[in-house]
C-alpha cells in the first residue's frame, strides 16, 4: 500500500491539525462516496463502527500519513457511541479482565457499578477535551468481577470508586515504563550473574531514571528474594496506567476498558482462541473489536499531545516561580519528579511487555512502529546532556503508601487491586492537573490544596510542611500547579 506523504513539519498535533485535515477531508469525502456504493448499510444505520481496522495495513515502521490514518481511526473509535449493532452489551460476561461468565444475565445491561457504564470512551475521558479526565459524575467502580457482578450499591466492600484519569502524553508514559522495566530486568540479571560468580548472596538496589525501587537479593542458585522491593511488582514490570499502577500498556487498558464499560469485547482476549466461542458474552455479536481497532485506539491515545505549561506573566508568573521553588523545597518533586529522561520515541504496538490476552509482538505479524517525534508537542520537549528527551510528567511511575493514621482520606478503599494494597497508589502525574479537576483517586476533592493536605504515608512530611505554610505561600504552590494544563 502506498500512502501520500506528509513530512514532519506538516504534521502537527492532532488537535491542531485542522489544515492537514481540511486537505484530506476532500479526499476522504470522495473516497467515502465511492466506497459508499459498496456499503450494504444505510447512511442512517445505527452503528458506530462501519468498518473494522485491519492491522496488516498498519505494520512495520509507519510513515506520517499511515500513522495519521491509524490515529484518526482511533480518534473516531474513541469518541464513537457504540451501539448494540456494534456489539455493546455483555449479557453473559462480567467486566473481569479474564473472560468470566455471569451466572445469569443482568436485569439491566447498563448499571453504574459493574457496567456497562458508558457509551463512548470520551463519555468519561473528556475534561477539558476528548482524551482527558472526568468529573466525579463519571467515576468508575473497579472490582475484579469474578463473582456475580450485579452489585446493588456503591458500598466500597464491592468495588473501589475511581475518578477518570486523563491520557495526554500517554504514549511517552508507556515508553518511559518500558525503558524503566528494561533497566530493572537488566539489574536483576546482573545481580544473578554476580551471585552465581561469587557464590554468595547479592543485594542489589534497583534504580531507573533516578527512581529507586528498593532492593532485591539474588542467591547463587538463581533465586530472587523480593521482600524489599518498593513501589513495583515482583515481576519488575513498571505498569504505568491506572491510579494503582497495575496496567502495563495502553493496549491492555483499552481491551480491559472496552469490555468493562461498553461490553465491546476484543477478539484478542475474548475470541474463540481463549474462550472457545466467538461470542463469549452471548450478545449475538462476534468480532466486536478487532486487533486493528485496538491498534487504532492505542495510536490515538499514544499520540495525545504532551500537556503544556500555561504561559503566565506578571503577578501569576511571580507567584508561580515562588511556588515552583516551594514544590522542590517541600520535596513534592521527590515523587512528582518533574521530568524523566526518555531515550527513544519509537512506539511499537503491541509492546514488549504484555502477556497473553493482549496482543503480543510474536502474534499476527509485525508491530506497528511509529515515531512520537511526529508530534509537535513532543518535538518541543527539552533534551538532557545525553540527548534524552525529558518528559515533564511530574511523576515517578512508582507506587507509594499514601495514607497514615492521621491522613487517611486516600485510604477509603476496602479492596486491594491486583495484589496492590489498599493504601498504595502510583504517584499521580501532575502534568495537565490544572485542566483535570476534581482531584484524588475518587475525585472527591475539589481543589488542589485539599488534595495536597490529604496526602499521608510516604508524603506525610511534604504534606505537613505544606500545611504549615502561610496562605500566601500555599497560594504560590497552587499558582505553579495551575500552570500545568492540557491545551484545548
Amino acid at each position, binding site marked *: 500500500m502506498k500512502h501520500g506523504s506528509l513530512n514532519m513539519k506538516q504534521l502537527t498535533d492532532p488537535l491542531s491539525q485542522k489544515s492537514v485535515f481540511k486537505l484530506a477531508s476532500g479526499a476522504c469525502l470522495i473516497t467515502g462516496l465511492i466506497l459508499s456504493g459498496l456499503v450494504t448499510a444505510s447512511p442512517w444505520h445505527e452503528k458506530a463502527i462501519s468498518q473494522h481496522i485491519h492491522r*496488516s495495513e498498519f505494520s512495520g515502521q509507519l510513515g506520517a500519513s499511515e500513522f495519521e*490514518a491509524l490515529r484518526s481511526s482511533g480518534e473516531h473509535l474513541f469518541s464513537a457511541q457504540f451501539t448494540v449493532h456494534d456489539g455493546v452489551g455483555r449479557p453473559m460476561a462480567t467486566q473481569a479482565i479474564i473472560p468470566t461468565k455471569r451466572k445469569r444475565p443482568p436485569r439491566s445491561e447498563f448499571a453504574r457499578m459493574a457496567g456497562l457504564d458508558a457509551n463512548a470512551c470520551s463519555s468519561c475521558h473528556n475534561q477539558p477535551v476528548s482524551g482527558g479526565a472526568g468529573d466525579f459524575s463519571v467515576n468508575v467502580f473497579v472490582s475484579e468481577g469474578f463473582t456475580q457482578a450485579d452489585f446493588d450499591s456503591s458500598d466500597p466492600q464491592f468495588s473501589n470508586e475511581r475518578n477518570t484519569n486523563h491520557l495526554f502524553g500517554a504514549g511517552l508514559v508507556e515508553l518511559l515504563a518500558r525503558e524503566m522495566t528494561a533497566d530493572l530486568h537488566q539489574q536483576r540479571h546482573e545481580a544473578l550473574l554476580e551471585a552465581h560468580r561469587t557464590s554468595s548472596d547479592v543485594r542489589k538496589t534497583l534504580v531507573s531514571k533516578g527512581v529507586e525501587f528498593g532492593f532485591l537479593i539474588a542467591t547463587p542458585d*538463581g533465586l530472587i528474594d*523480593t521482600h524489599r522491593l518498593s513501589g513495583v*511488582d*515482583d515481576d519488575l514490570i513498571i505498569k504505568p496506567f491506572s491510579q494503582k499502577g497495575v496496567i502495563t500498556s495502553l493496549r491492555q487498558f483499552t481491551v480491559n476498558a472496552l469490555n468493562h464499560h461498553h461490553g465491546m469485547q476484543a477478539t484478542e482476549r475474548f475470541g474463540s482462541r481463549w474462550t472457545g466461542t466467538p461470542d463469549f458474552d452471548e450478545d449475538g455479536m462476534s468480532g466486536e473489536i478487532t486487533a486493528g481497532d485496538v491498534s487504532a485506539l492505542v495510536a490515538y491515545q499514544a499520540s495525545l499531545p504532551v500537556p503544556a505549561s500555561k504561559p503566565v506573566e506578571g503577578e501569576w508568573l511571580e507567584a508561580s516561580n515562588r511556588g515552583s521553588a516551594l514544590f522542590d523545597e517541600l520535596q513534592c518533586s521527590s515523587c512528582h519528579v518533574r521530568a524523566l529522561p526518555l531515550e527513544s520515541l519509537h512506539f511499537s504496538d503491541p509492546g514488549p511487555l504484555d502477556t497473553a490476552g493482549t496482543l503480543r509482538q510474536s502474534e499476527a505479524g509485525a508491530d506497528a512502529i511509529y515515531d512520537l517525534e511526529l508530534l509537535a508537542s513532543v518535538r518541543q520537549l527539552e533534551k538532557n546532556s545525553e540527548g534524552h528527551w525529558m518528559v515533564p510528567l511530574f511523576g515517578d511511575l512508582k507506587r507509594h503508601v499514601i495514607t497514615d493514621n492521621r491522613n487517611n482520606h486516600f485510604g477509603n478503599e476496602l479492596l486491594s487491586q491486583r495484589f496492590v494494597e489498599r493504601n498504595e497508589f502510583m504517584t499521580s502525574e501532575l502534568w495537565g492537573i490544572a485542566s483535570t479537576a476534581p482531584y484524588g483517586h475518587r475525585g472527591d476533592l475539589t481543589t488542589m490544596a485539599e488534595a495536597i493536605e490529604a496526602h499521608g504515608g510516604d508524603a506525610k512530611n511534604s504534606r505537613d510542611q505544606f500545611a504549615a505554610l502561610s496562605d500566601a505561600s500555599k497560594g504560590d504552590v497552587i499558582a505553579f500547579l495551575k500552570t500545568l494544563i492540557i491545551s484545548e
Partner: protein
Amino acid sequence: MSMLSPDHLIARGSRSSKSLTVLVTGLVVSINAYATEESGLDIPLFEEVAMPAGIEHSYDGPWEHFVGGGVAAFDCNNDRFADVFVAGGSNHSAMYINASSTAGDIRFEKADSPITDLKNVIGAYPVNINNDEWMDLVVLRVGRNMLLTGEPDCRFANANQKLLFDGGVEWSTAFSATFSNDDIYPTLAFGNYVDRTAPGSPWGTCSDNLLFRPAVDDNNQVAYPEAIPLDPGHCALSMIFTDWNRSGTDSLRITNDRQYHRGGEEQLWRTSDRYPRLYSRADGWAPLVIWGMGIAEADLNADGYPEYALTSMGDTKLQSVDVAQAVEENRPAYEDIAWDKGATAHRPYTGTDLKPSTGWHAEFADLNNDSLPDLYISKGNVEQMPDFAQYDPDNLLLGTHDDKFEEQGLAAGIALPRRGRGASIVDLNRDGLLDLIVVNRGEPVSVFQHTGYKSDHGPRAGGNWLAVELQQKGGNRHAVGARITVKTGNRVQSKNISVGGGHASGTADFAHFGLGVAERANIRVQWPDEEWSASYRVFANQHVVIKRGDDQVRYWYPIR
C-alpha cells in the same frame, strides 16, 4: 493519504478476502476487507530435535523389552534444568545432562557414568530416597532393580547394599513411591510382570508386586530390608500411589495387563494397613479387565478428587470417582467418562490403518498453556501384533473449553511412525513451553521441542504459564504428596506432587500450570501433612520456588 472517516468505513462481517484500491486525487486509499478469524485452540508445534540435541539412543531387545522403555526426567546437578536418564533394554541405558540455553535450542551432553550405563533397564523414576539435596533414581530392570543415590555433578552411587535393598530377580515394570504417615523416607512399591520361571509361563504366571517400607535406625539412617508381597500380582505395567478419596492417606492403584494374567483385574491396594489389602467388590471396587499399560492422574474438574487415564490396547479409559460414595462410604466407585470427553483414542487418528491402537504412557499436562488440561498418550504396536495398528501415532488430546478433548497430534507434529513407549513432558529449555521426550522401541528416542503455536503467521506466543517448585525441611524435601492449587479468576487448577504412573517413566520437575490469559495467580499449597500454606500472589510467566513457611515465593531465573 489513507484517512477513513467514520461514514466512509465499510461494514464487514464475512471472512472473505477482498481488497479495494481506489485512487483519489493522487492519494492512494487501500482497504483490505478481510477479517481475521481466531483459530480456536492453540496447537503446539513440536520439532523433533533428538539428534541435534545430542540424544542418540534407542530402546530395544527381545520379548522382555516389548514392554518398558522408560525415561526419568529430573535435575541431577541442581541447576534447575531437567536432565534425563533413558532406558535401553538390551542396549545400555544412559544419562544425559541438560546443556540447553534458556529458551534456546535443546542440548544434552551424555554423561560418562558407568553406574547409570546399565543393561536390561526397563525404566526409571526419580525420588529422593535418602533425603539429601541430590535427587535419587530408582531403576527398574529385568533382574536386579537398583536404587541409585544422587551425588554432586550427576554422579550416582549404587545404594542397594547400603540400603539393604534386595533388587530381586523379577521383571519389574512399574514403580511408585509415597511418604506415609509423615515418614521422612519414602515407601517404595515395585510392580512386576511375568514370572518367566513359573510353570506354564507366560500365561497366568504374574509375579507378586512388592512393597518396601522404610526402616529407620537409631542414627536416622534408612534401609529397605523387607519386601512385603502384594499378592496377587496381575502383571502390572503401571502403578501410582494416590489419595483417591482425599482421606489424607494414599492407596496404591495398579493397572494390569490382561494379556498375561488369568482372572486378574485392575487393583487398588490399601497399603497403609500393616498388611496391605485389596479393595474388593464389597468395598465398591468394580472389576475392570484391560491391557493396562499406563496410568495418568489429574484433577480435571478441580473438585479435589483425581481422575485417571488408563491406557490399553484399544480404548483408553478415563475414570472419574463417584464423590458421594468416596466421601460418605469410602467406596472407590468409578465412572468411565472417556467417551463423553472424546478421549477414547482407540484407533489411529491419521493414516489408513484402522485397527485398534496400543497405548502406553499417559500424562496430563497443559501443553498449550491455555489453562485447560491436555492428555498425551504414547502409542505403538507391541512388536508385530497383527490385530493392532502398525502405524499408531501418539495422541495429543487438547483440552477444550467445553471440558472435552480434541485430537491434534498430527497438526502438532508428533505423529511419527515410531513405536512409542515411555515418555516425559517437561520444559527442557525453561522457556515456559513444555517439551516432550518419547522413548521408542527399536527406534530413536524422540525429543520434541515445543516451538510455539500454529498460526497463519508461523509460530506465535501462547498462553501464560507458571512453574512451581516446592521445598520443605526435614523429610520429604520435595513435598511428594503435596497438592498445589492455582487460582486465576474463577478457575482453580490442582496438581499433586506424585511419584509413579505413566509407563516406566517418571518426572520430577517444576509443576507446570498454563494460565491462559491470566496475568496473575494465587497459589495455595496443601503440604503432605495436610497443612495449608498461606496464599501466595504470583505473576504469570515465572518460575517460582515455595519454601514451606515462607510468606512470599521466590522467583527463579535461569542465567544461561
